[in-house]
């Protein structure tokens, strides 16, 4: 069982990642707020708990790999890398400006801690498979975590990679589907419904774990369970809310890639402050009880 202190630490980190996300967005700059905030807890649990990762040496051959197949949501990964000290904090405000470190999509040449180039959707799982096969040849057991979007599952290449990863028994891969139900132009159900996502992965030979993707305890438990599965890869289907934490952006396709006005920025900041207050009060109560 994960102790309360760990859960509290990770909840606070997930909130901090959302504050960083807001700082990157600023006012008047388009950014993928919705799909970034739906992953905040998942990213916090990976980088600050589950992954073997030494921020002092982001190229350590022993490290586990984090791949963001839904590369447009890299803002939340930047936030984690800033909190780890891999990316200097002052870069946050320079997001997507000319010659900046933090590009609109993951760019391993420009940004420390980024492991691959993703952004054209559907490719991350294949990259993960290549890493898994290569590391296995070297006798290494590094784990590879790859986060995919639910809208992204329309890409055929994902299923090519799913078949191949099962055939190669790539059990060092943990796939995570950020099931936030909303894509660029509307609800996934209305764009092109992908029913029975869990059954699809099962049919492709994967172990499937279904969780609430905002529940730190469930995320940690699923990541731990996935590590112990041998002989086949595992995928965590994480039920999430697009735009989670930002009242105006929740379940709203307009903030898949949206712009914050000054009013919305203030609202967003107030929303996060309220979450912080609620967290403080909840943990204060728990300490007392």
């Amino acid at each position: 069982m994960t102790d309360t202190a760990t859960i509290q630490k990770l909840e606070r980190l997930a909130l901090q990642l959302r504050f960083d996300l807001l700082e990157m967005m600023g006012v008047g700059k388009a950014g993928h707020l919705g799909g970034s905030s739906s992953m905040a807890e998942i990213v916090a649990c990976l980088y600050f708990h589950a992954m073997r990762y030494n921020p002092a040496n982001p190229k350590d051959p022993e490290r586990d790999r984090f791949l963001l197949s839904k590369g447009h949501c890299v803002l939340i990964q930047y936030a984690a890398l800033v909190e780890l000290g891999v990316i200097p904090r002052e870069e946050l405000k320079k997001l997507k400006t000319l010659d900046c470190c933090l590009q609109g999509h993951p760019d391993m040449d420009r940004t420390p801690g980024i492991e691959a180039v993703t952004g054209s959707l559907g490719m991350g799982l294949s990259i993960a498979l290549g890493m898994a096969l290569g590391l296995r040849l070297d006798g290494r057991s590094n784990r590879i975590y790859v986060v995919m979007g639910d809208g992204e599952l329309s890409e055929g290449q994902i299923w090519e990679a799913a078949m191949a990863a099962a055939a190669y028994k790539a059990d060092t891969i943990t796939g995570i589907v950020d099931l936030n139900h909303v894509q660029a132009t509307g609800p996934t159900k209305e764009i092109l419904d992908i029913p029975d996502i869990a059954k699809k992965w099962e049919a492709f030979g994967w172990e499937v774990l279904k969780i609430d993707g905002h529940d730190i305890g469930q995320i940690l438990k699923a990541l731990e369970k996935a590590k112990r599965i041998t002989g086949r890869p595992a995928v965590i289907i994480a039920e999430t809310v697009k735009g989670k934490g930002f009242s105006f952006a929740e379940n709203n396709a307009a903030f898949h890639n949206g712009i914050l006005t000054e009013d919305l920025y203030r609202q967003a900041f107030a929303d996060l402050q309220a979450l912080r207050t609620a967290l403080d009060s909840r943990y204060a109560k728990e300490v007392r009880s």
Partner: protein
Amino acid sequence: MNPHPNMREAYGLALLELGKVNRNVVALEADLGKSTRSVLFQEAFPDRYFQMGIAEQNMAATAAGLALVGKIPFIHSFAVFAAGRTFDQLRNTVSIPRLNVRICGSSCGLSDFGDGKTHQSVEDVAIMRALPNMTVLSPMDSIETVKMMECLIDWPGPVYIRINRSDLPFLYPLSEPYHIGKITKLRDGSDVVLLAAGVMVSRSLEAAGLLAEKGISARVFNVSTIKPINRQGLIEAVTGARAIVVSEEHNTVGGLGGAVLEALRTVSHASVELIGIKDSFGMSAANYEEILARFGLTAPDIAGAAMDLLRKS
């Protein structure tokens, strides 16, 4: 000793040799290994050979992952699929981060003469050449193929290598080393310059013979590194010529001809004619010679183009 005259077989044997000298060399296939001859690598190194099924896009991005953990992956398919079906994967996961992925475009050009337009690559060089960071190679025979392959352990960044399905005549000097960017002079002459890659090199040499019969002196160069093109080498090669003919088994749009003209654009040079597939797709044929003739890829076509240019000059 000469390698196997069949370019695919020579390629497979060269890949096997690379596998022996460097344990990071790995190979990926999409169910064409018996044709591309990567199967020779599989027999020796089954653990380092990955059969990816008929899923070229996954193969290309899987190769990116392998390269990211220090491997030197060679991916294989027919040229039309190796460059076409995988384009977005090669663009994003391989070319942008300049990964050491090697792409073998086998049965290139019209060399898969029987299978028709869906399997014949008229545009692979243009596609790969347009990708920033991509190196594009087109060997003229098995000797050059083997020597090129030896360059592919250390050469940084992605490489596309175009492999012909057929037995091609030996032309590359056995004792001469190869380096990427090398332009090889195969015949000296003063009136016209014939530049070519792949199967069209031997045809350009034949054309030089035909021109000699008419009293025209032609020098012939093999330009097998299409990108990065050796600009200085090309400028020197064409200096003093009264006509230039560039020949390739590829669309005249975007291939070696385009690369040569881009390279020569700021220097004065003779008129240039392009011998290639004239912006059309291929078709099935009973044999290789027949289809090359139909598309105007013969020695008399090259010689005729040179004489036309000389008449106009």
